[in-house]
């Protein structure tokens, strides 16, 4: 900064940057070069350009939402895309305006003083009301999906109890009597089986610390909290085997708290249950060997 402004009396008199008549407007700050203003505005143009490009290209490389195999997942994904478009438009508009102002109002590009304006009542009202209305719409628009996923619980007995524990998922199927907590309950670890196209109700518990029951392909995530029984439900729409991930840090082994969920036809599901039942009878494995969370 080699411009001289060491006026000891700046405090009482201000520092005249020296505008002599006929001169172009001087604000006392060093006048940059035009090319540097252009370069900096182009740098900021990269933000919307590369930002958008990233989101456009990523899906082609399979860096995108994993395949959804649930009913409610469709509306979650729909909402995701809706917000993506909405925020994308706002992102592009504001970043492009920023770029344009940077390009246009570079001090090196003009010899005029800045516009003296302190605000605009009209604009403030407009840019408060429009986002307010949009956000309110969004808030109301999404409520139904939320209610479907977390509030409108299907009227049925739990299809399985999932008990999270450092660092595994313990599953307990109700067995033939379709009631949890009875003699014929079936025990499995990390291997969840789910019949396709049927409402499936999980009763989620934890026996030690917090965990989170995350099924990326079923768009399900719910923390497991010791002391609570939390219902989680979904309807799977495609057969296959998918990941179960723990999404809440639960200690050193958190990263390997992995399970699999197999979506299969009702017939396959029943066959699988029968096999588990047979195995369990054969080995006399029961609740004593697998400590479950405290009785209900």
């Amino acid at each position, binding site marked *: 900064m080699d411009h001289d402004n060491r006026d000891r009396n700046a405090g009482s008199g201000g520092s005249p940057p020296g505008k002599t008549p006929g001169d172009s407007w001087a604000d006392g700050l060093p006048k940059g070069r035009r090319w540097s203003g252009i370069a900096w505005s182009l740098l900021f143009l990269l933000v919307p350009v590369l930002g958008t490009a990233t989101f456009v290209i990523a899906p082609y490389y399979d860096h995108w939402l994993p395949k959804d195999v649930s009913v409610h997942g469709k509306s979650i994904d729909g909402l995701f895309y809706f917000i993506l478009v909405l925020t994308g438009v706002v992102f592009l508009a504001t970043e492009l305006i*920023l770029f344009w102002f940077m390009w246009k109002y570079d001090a090196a590009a003009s010899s005029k003083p800045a516009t003296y304006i302190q605000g605009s009542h009209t604009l403030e009202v407009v840019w408060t009301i429009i986002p307010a209305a949009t956000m309110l719409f969004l808030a109301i628009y999404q409520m139904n999906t939320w209610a479907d996923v977390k509030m409108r619980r299907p009227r049925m007995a739990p299809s399985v109890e999932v008990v999270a524990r450092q660092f595994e998922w313990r599953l307990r199927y109700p067995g033939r009597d379709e009631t949890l907590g009875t003699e014929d309950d079936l025990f499995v670890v990390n291997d969840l089986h789910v019949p396709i196209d049927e409402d499936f109700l999980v009763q989620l518990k934890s026996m030690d610390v917090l965990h989170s029951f995350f099924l990326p392909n079923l768009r399900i995530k719910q923390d497991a909290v010791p002391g609570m029984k939390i219902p989680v439900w979904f309807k799977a729409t495609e057969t296959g085997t998918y990941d179960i991930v723990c999404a809440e840090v639960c200690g050193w082994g958190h990263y390997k708290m992995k399970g699999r969920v197999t979506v299969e036809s009702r017939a396959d599901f029943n066959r699988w249950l029968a096999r588990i039942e047979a195995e369990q009878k054969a080995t006399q494995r029961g609740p004593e060997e697998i400590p479950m969370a405290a009785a209900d």
Partner: protein
Amino acid sequence: MSTVTQPHAPPKDTAHHDHVATRGSTSLSTFLSTYVFSKDHKVIGLQFLFSTLVWFLIGGLLALAVRWQVAWPWSDVPVLGKLFAQHGGQMAPEFYTMLFTMHASVMIFLVIIPILAGAFGNFLIPLMIGADDMAFPTLNMLSYWFMWPAFFFFGASFFVEGGAAAGGWTSYPPLSTSTVSAPGSGMGQTLWLLGLTMVGVSSMLGSVNYMTTIILMRAPGMTMFRLPMTIWAMFITAILQAFALPVLTAAGFMQLTDRLIGTGFFSPEGNIINNAMSGAGGGQPILWQHLFWFYSHPAVYIMILPAMGMVSDILTTFARKPLFGYRPMVYSIAGIAGLGFIVWGHHMFISGMNPALGITFMVATMMIALPSAVKTFNWLGTIWGGRIHYTTAMLFAISFVSMFIIGGLSGIFMAATPVDIFIHDTYFIVAHFHYVLFAGTAMGVWAGIYYWFPKMFGRTMNEFWGKVHFFLTFMFLNGTFFTMHILGAVGFPRRLADAYHYETFHHLQPLNAFMTWCAMGMVATQIIFAINFFWSMFRGPIAGRNPWNANTLEWTAPSPPGHGNFDFQPVVYRGPYEFSVPGCEKDHLMQTDPPHPAEAAAAAAAHA
């Protein structure tokens, strides 16, 4: 206040300055009271600045270690690997959990919060309101020295058995309350809680002081609505601190007693951890989350509002234009602060909290996006029609706006409860808070450092290297953090030492490696900043009082200001943003310049 008529106030009593002059006498006690246990707000501000910058470096290195593991899990860690060689040179998973916990804890509690309020707040508040110091200089000194126990507790926790805290910076029980649940839940967690409490004490002392000072010690003529945005932001931040902090402090003590004497506030009935009964029962883990976020959501604004204020001031100076919508800007900060208290539940949508309550928090969260939008539009309005000077400070300030747009918009995804089901605890969140905290606040802090450096040290920083620093940081930061949105869209979970054994995530390693390269570049770039900083402190060009031709009061004081700050009693005649007033021969009217005939007419015309 409008009765002030004396344009040239007489020089103030200069007795204060003699005090500084006597430091030549080599008395140790004078040295200590001037530089170490100083009660001068400027010295305290700089003490905060230097301490937090050191922790910024530590936090950055922790982040690199986190990134190393995410990109190349279980591979030997270069250099550092030898220091903590548990498994050859590779990182143990419990070490990884400790790393991300301490990275965030250090960045939040020892860097961002104290650098904004402690360093900038202290240095700028008296100078910008025309006071000779803070209202309570001794409290002020204590607010700095209470950071040292926190530095000690956090620092020492790395060396205790089991290592530092490893339950995440959010420290959710029972993982954090049960000492057997993880190695880091031992002594490290206790020290973490003590450190947190000390940071709280420091912040509380600071905020009481800032509120009092801003209310009582403004120069003649400095009405509330003539305060620069920086001061408004600091003022509202101080109020936020004062109301939110007691809750965190209480919660911290509850967690401490849970751990030490088994009070069981957060431990449920019949909990079995590591095959042993744990906790007295009768408690509720989710209670901690409510208490923690009741503080920590307002805290995210504590971590950005001051930067917003500073950026507003810097934008006007280098656009040579009045701030667009001064009052809406003030009201929107107040709005953010007010709403900030009723949105904490958006961190807990899937925590097991009543889902109907989630809807309430969702609506409040949608509403808090409004004031943020208003601020962004007004910043754009401020540079519209300006005469923009691309100084380093201005580039950082503009990038704050550009990046805050991204961080604000990604927030809308997470506010939408159904979408949050999928992206909660994924890298989408990590992307979000780094856009607001790093690309936002940290860039704002750099803008502030380049801008006020001349006032702090009487010299300007090197502009060329400043711009190199800006350019590289800007590129690397977007390379590191923008891509995290994409990881988040795949559902890539945060806090996992190795996620590639999941079918869903196994193909994401190359992208993560790219991000880690960018992160390393970003940290390396800060060497340029460090050299520029120290070189300019001693060798930079002498700055003079007002190197940027800005309007606010600090620029009327000598650079650096002596003890007592002003050699004239500043008297304020106008708001802080009178740039380019039509009909005025000067391009800016400082707050202390006597009334100018062109002003009244211009002001009347300018309210469109």
